[in-house]
Structure formats: C-alpha cells, structure tokens
C-alpha cells in the first residue's frame, strides 16, 4: 500500500505547479496509470479522497480524480508479435521463448489538472 505516498507526491506536483500559475483551488486531477506501473487505481482513489479531505484549503470538496489506464504491451524481438504481457512478461506466445520486451504499461504520470482562482 504505497498509494498514499504516491498520491502525496501527485498532489504536491499539482499544488506546486498550480501555485506557480496563481491558482488556489483544484477541481480535477487526471492520471495515466499503466497496467504494470505497480499502482492500484482503487487504492489511488481512496488515497485521493482522504488527502483531498485533509487539504480543503487547496482542493475543492468536489475535486475528482480521473484515471486513464495504459494497456500493457510487449513486442517479441524475434518474430515481431505484439502481445499483452500477463504473468510471464517476456514469454512470446508465438515463439514460446522469453524474447518479448515491454513497450507500454509502465507509464505513471500526472496527465493534467484543472483549477481556478477563487478570489
């Protein structure tokens, strides 16, 4: 359960940027969370709700979190097959050799936020 720590980092990144742009109320935060980025959307949502409620001086009580999932993808370096890596991440389903490389699904980004100046 490191999602609390991650959400703390996310809100800090948003807050620093928003303060620099003269905003004082955040309404929405959008994330890209890859399927193999090692963060669970449900736990992130829970952490967001908790931290938002503790920081209502900067986050609107209705502030929402939107999570976009990035699908995990791998490509076999031998046959070029694109496949969805499951447990056996490197195992190409065609060649049956661990010749696959992960090309997507590890992204974990703050995509955007929406805020305003309430004063």
């Amino acid at each position, binding site marked *: *359960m*490191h999602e609390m*720590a*991650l959400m703390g*980092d*996310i809100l*800090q*990144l*948003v807050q620093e*940027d*928003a303060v620099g*742009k003269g*905003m004082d109320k955040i309404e929405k935060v959008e*994330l890209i969370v890859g399927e*193999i*980025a*090692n*963060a669970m959307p449900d736990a992130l949502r829970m952490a967001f709700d908790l931290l938002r409620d503790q920081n209502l001086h900067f986050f609107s009580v209705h502030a929402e979190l939107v999570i976009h999932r990035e699908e995990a993808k791998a490509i076999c370096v031998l046959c070029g097959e694109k496949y969805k890596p499951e*447990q*056996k*991440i*490197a*195992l190409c389903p065609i060649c049956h050799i*661990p*010749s696959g490389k*992960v090309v997507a699904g590890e992204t*974990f*980004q*703050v*995509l*955007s*936020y*929406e*805020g*305003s100046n309430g004063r």
Partner: protein
Amino acid sequence: MKVTLRTDVLTNNNKAAEFNRELFQNTKTLVMNLMSSPGAGKTTLLEETVRVLAGKYRIAVIEGDLATERDADRIRAMGARAVQINTHGGCHLDARMVAAALGELDLDEIDILFIENVGNLVCPSGYDLGQKHKVAVLSVPEGNDKIPKYPQMFMRTELVLLNKLDLLPYLDFSVEEAKRDLAEINPKSNLLPLSARTQEGMHEWFFWIEGAYLKWLQQ
C-alpha cells in the same frame, strides 16, 4: 483552467535518485538495492557477506525497516558501518530517505554499500534509489509461486538470490521451475541458489559481487 503536465509521478523521487547516483559515481561507491518479502533472510545474508568480504572491501549497509534498530545492530556486530532508516510504517524506501541517510556515511571511505529495503515484494520495486544493481532475495519456504505472482518485482531485478537452500529436502520447491519462471519474466536475470546459514552457494554470490565491483571501477 486546465493545465497539461504529463509529469512522471515519481519525478521528485527520480531527482533524488539522480542526486544519489552522482554521489555514488563521484565517490566510486558500488551500491546494491536488496529487495525481498519479509523473512527471506536479507539480513542474515548481509551478515555473512560482511563477515566474509569486510577484510577485502570497506562495506556499509543502509537498513530500511518499519521500526527498530535490530538489523543495523546485527550488521554492526559483523564489523561494518550501518545506518538504520525507520520508515514509521512506510512500505518501501525512497531516494530521499536514502539521501538523508547518506549524511551519516563517509562515502569516500566505502567501496560497497548495500541498501536493505523494507521487506515487501510490491512497493519497493518502483522506486529508484540511485543504486547500480537491484537484487531480489527469495527463499525456498516461500514456495515456487512467488516469481510468477510478483512479475513486476522480478522484471526489474537483475539477480535473484534463492536463499535457505538447506531446507530444500524438506519442502516441495523446484529450483528448475524457479529458473524457468524467472527466465520467462526476465531472461536477463540470473538465479543463484544458496544458503546463508550453511554457506552453500555463497561463494557464487561473493564472486558476483567481486565481478560487479571490478566492472564498476572500470566504467
């Protein structure tokens, strides 16, 4: 007003990791980040490693734990410098915690630094600490399903130490299966079966460390 950031969530951690990495490079300190589930035997393995290698290399250990100084005390008893980081419930070490702990070590006087992460196969894998090598420790009693169950850890480590090999006769663990599972997740990773308690296979680990150290000095 909508602002597009596209900033990596771990940006601040990664900045601290780069800071650490530069420090390690400037002081020629080889750093290994050891990760495992609780009870895999990381501290015992490090005790033995320090005991054998301390005559040849100047070794230090950063111990990450939820609470207590116990692990650091065990390492100090073997004659190495040890700094304890208590995460106060936090499930992993991050690069900032390591940067803070480095203040207690004179890196110019250290050849090899081991960072013993908090026992956990999930959270520590995503955090770059600035280390040169990520090493996972797995133990025979944990069973064969650890590698396929935690692919996100094993895809990011380059060496897996399979500890407690002395218990193999009593348990249904297949070393061959573990090697196959690991190869299917991360073909670049090696698996070294060993026992910190009986010393079996430990020389392979020491050999690996010495090779890594020579390579590190040459780069």
